């Protein structure tokens, strides 16, 4: 407090303002942890509320420590080759702490997504294991390939893969790992009728909590999507305001479309699904938000709603039980958002983003930039999906093999909170 003296030159001042922008965005992204925690807590049943919270805390705390120690060096360490970064473990010798903090918050988000998919039926212990693997291996490699300047997906084609703020790296990775996990764990007891196989609803214990969570995530997403400009000087603030506008339009369009589609289809207004539609829209916008026109954002949002609803329906048909619909939201909408870059990106904006290279003439298919970028995005999506599916399958298969994954059925019926020192709401009666 009152320790520092002013000693500014105008050069460092611009850099300071840029860092300020990124730091503020970082705080917002860390705050989405609160949003995810509340969302997950609201969607599970009261008997599992405490355990999902503890998982969410473990994710954040341990995931952050591992990413600091190992993950960041693999993603962005100096002397990286096409495959991985190789130095600066434990941040030793690394100076750009602002950038680190921002990336750190991103990795925490990706890891948190997984715990939602595994809700209500896995050991709390298991979360320690997958958090470590996810933040030390699965996420960092994907981040290196897609984001680091030396990453191999970054060097393909004219522009390389474009993922402005984590549609592929954060959402797709988190969603895919979760989806594999939920498939290997199997559905919750009582989710599908044992005879007919029809899904039966297992409603969450507090829709208010999950709505609160969604609103916090929405708020945090402004940091998530607009902070990726990594500064505001040199025209980047326009990129940030474009991102804020397009992200809002995509999210609200997706929310409204979901709502109306369900109303038309079933005659009810469904809060939980509308909230998910909103989140799906946010996810779909993250890869592309800085490079599209508002009309493109609107189309992306409307389509995202059907992508979400369709994949959610498909999962139920295949009897895969994803309690929070994290697969449909983060994986499917993440894929759609990544492809949308190849469909809707405009020439002007792509050139603004990719300021490093010569003016490019490869951009969105629908905006007249040819099919190449779409191909590159498709390739990237396929590669990242494959990477996640392979590593996650090995991980969860081994965990199942050593019996540290699924909780036994009596425990599951009683609620996992018994392992976490009693029920979450001791003053109220569960029914």
């Amino acid at each position, binding site marked *: 407090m009152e320790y520092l003296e002013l000693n500014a030159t105008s050069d460092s001042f611009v850099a300071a303002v840029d860092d300020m922008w990124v730091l503020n965005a970082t705080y917002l992204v860390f705050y989405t942890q609160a949003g995810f925690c509340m969302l997950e807590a609201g969607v599970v*049943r009261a008997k599992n509320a405490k355990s999902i919270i503890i998982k969410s805390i473990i994710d954040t705390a341990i995931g952050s420590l591992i990413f600091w120690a190992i993950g960041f060096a693999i993603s962005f360490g100096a002397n990286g080759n096409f495959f991985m970064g190789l130095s600066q473990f434990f941040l030793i010798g690394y100076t750009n702490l602002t950038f680190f903090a921002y990336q750190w918050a991103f990795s925490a988000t990706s890891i948190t997504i997984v715990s939602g998919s595994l809700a209500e039926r896995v050991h709390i212990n298991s979360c320690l294991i997958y958090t470590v693997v996810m933040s030390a291996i699965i996420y960092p490699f994907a981040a290196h390939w897609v984001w680091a300047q030396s990453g191999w997906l970054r060097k393909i084609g004219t522009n390389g893969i474009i993922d402005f703020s984590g549609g592929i790296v954060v959402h797709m990775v988190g969603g895919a790992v979760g989806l594999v996990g939920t498939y290997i764990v199997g559905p919750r007891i009582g989710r599908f009728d044992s005879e007919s196989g029809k899904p039966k609803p297992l409603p969450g214990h507090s829709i208010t909590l999950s709505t609160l969570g969604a609103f916090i995530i929405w708020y945090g997403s402004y940091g998530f999507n607009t902070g990726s400009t990594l500064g505001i000087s*040199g025209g980047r603030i326009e990129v940030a305001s474009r991102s804020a506008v397009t992200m*809002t339009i995509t999210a609200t369009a997706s929310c409204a479309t979901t709502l109306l589609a369900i109303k038309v289809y079933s005659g009810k207004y469904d809060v939980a699904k509308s909230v998910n539609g909103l989140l799906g829209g946010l996810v779909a916008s993250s890869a592309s938000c800085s490079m599209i026109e508002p*009309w493109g954002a609107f189309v992306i949002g409307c389509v995202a709603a059907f992508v979400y609803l369709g994949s959610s329906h498909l999962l139920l048909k295949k009897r895969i039980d994803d309690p929070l619909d994290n697969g449909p939201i983060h994986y499917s909408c993440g894929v759609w958002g990544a492809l949308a870059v190849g469909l809707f990106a405009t020439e002007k904006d792509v050139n603004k983003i*990719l*300021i490093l290279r010569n003016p490019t003439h490869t951009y969105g298919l629908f905006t007249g930039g040819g099919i190449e970028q779409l191909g590159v995005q498709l390739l990237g999506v396929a590669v990242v999906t494959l990477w996640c599916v392979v590593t996650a399958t090995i991980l969860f298969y081994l965990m199942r093999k050593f019996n540290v994954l699924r909780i036994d059925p009596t425990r599951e019926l009683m609620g996992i909170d018994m392992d976490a020192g009693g029920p979450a709401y001791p003053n109220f009666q569960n029914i």
Partner: protein
Amino acid sequence: QQDDNVWYDSSNIPSYATAKRINQILDYNWVLRSSYLVIFMQAGFSFLEAGMVRGKNTKNILFKNLITTALGAIFFFGLGYSFAFDQGKNYSNSFVACCSFFTLREEDYYSWVSKWAFSSIACTIINGSVSERTKMIAYLILNSIVPSIVYPLVAHWVWNQTGWLYQLGVIDYGGAMVVHILGGSIGLVGTIILGPRLGKFDLETGRPLVLAEHNIVLSSIGGMILWFTFYGLHPMLFGIDINKGVIASRGAISTTLSGSISMVTSVIVTLITSKKYDLKIVINGLLSGFVAASSCAGFIEPFYSIIIGVGSAIVYLSFSKMLLRYQVDDPCQSASVHLANGIWGSICASLFSNRDLVDSVYQNRTNYLSVIQGGFKLLFIQLIGIGATIIWCVILKRYQLLRIDSDVELTGMDIRHHGGAIGPYHRPS
């Protein structure tokens, strides 16, 4: 080689770090960041209102606030922004601008975000007033019309340099007229047309009965979130530079003081009259102070915010009492908080504003001395502004709102329209 520059290489960025340019960047930064806070207000209002309705309608109100925000963005993007702030070569007079619908100029993007955030707050305030008894279709219509035409016109009048109220000299620091009076008066008219909730007033004596809010803890989360987010609502409009930075700090302090004093006054008054600490009044008293400060927080000496705060508590308590006497049922007390204190705050703006401070942010117009500085013209102008806003809202609100069936109202809308109550494990008692 360092791998930490995801998109930009700063050595290639053209250096136009001129003074003007930096100032513009900072303005953008300030406005965007404040807008995010204001959008987060949606969460605050949702929980405030969700906690204050009965358990059987919780899902309904959450749903409405969610859809309000979503539909509002789409309609404000398509129609509203153009009516309010069309800056192109198109038609624009002192009453309305027109007609570049569905298109935004790139330099308007950040401004769109902030103005949309304001509009969604106005809509959410309405939801609180008409909660627990309105048909969903009526909501959807209402929430399409307000952001496409009702809010934009008032915003045009008060905030746009060509608007007639702006040119008259109306002061609105953080949306007292455009957000609070507008939302509050539409809500009040709505709630009058709808009539009270079943069982709110005794059929014989006409006395108000208690329809207890189901989860006041939730409301207080909402209230605390709103406290935080009001710091985004208030200093946003004017952007930032050294003068405006001072005004923003002044605004933050006056806002805090006004809210605190208003809350303390409401608590003391309630303690004297009913011997209870009532949490609902604590929360709404706090918000009343913030609302009242929204007209002029940056333009006054912090000392005057005490008067504003004490006044707003009294305005809030007496207005809500008056509504009950006339058997108007306002479940979340939105009209008392937002309409009454929006008016009170706007009047205070003409009483206490410091002309120099006002001049330092409002350009190209004549400002008038406030009452404490010896001028009365501003008072009349503020009154005209208040009147115009209210009249506009009332005129537009004269269409029939559709009320839900009484049996649905008794069972609760969550079960009938949303596929079940909020939490199956909570047993309503």
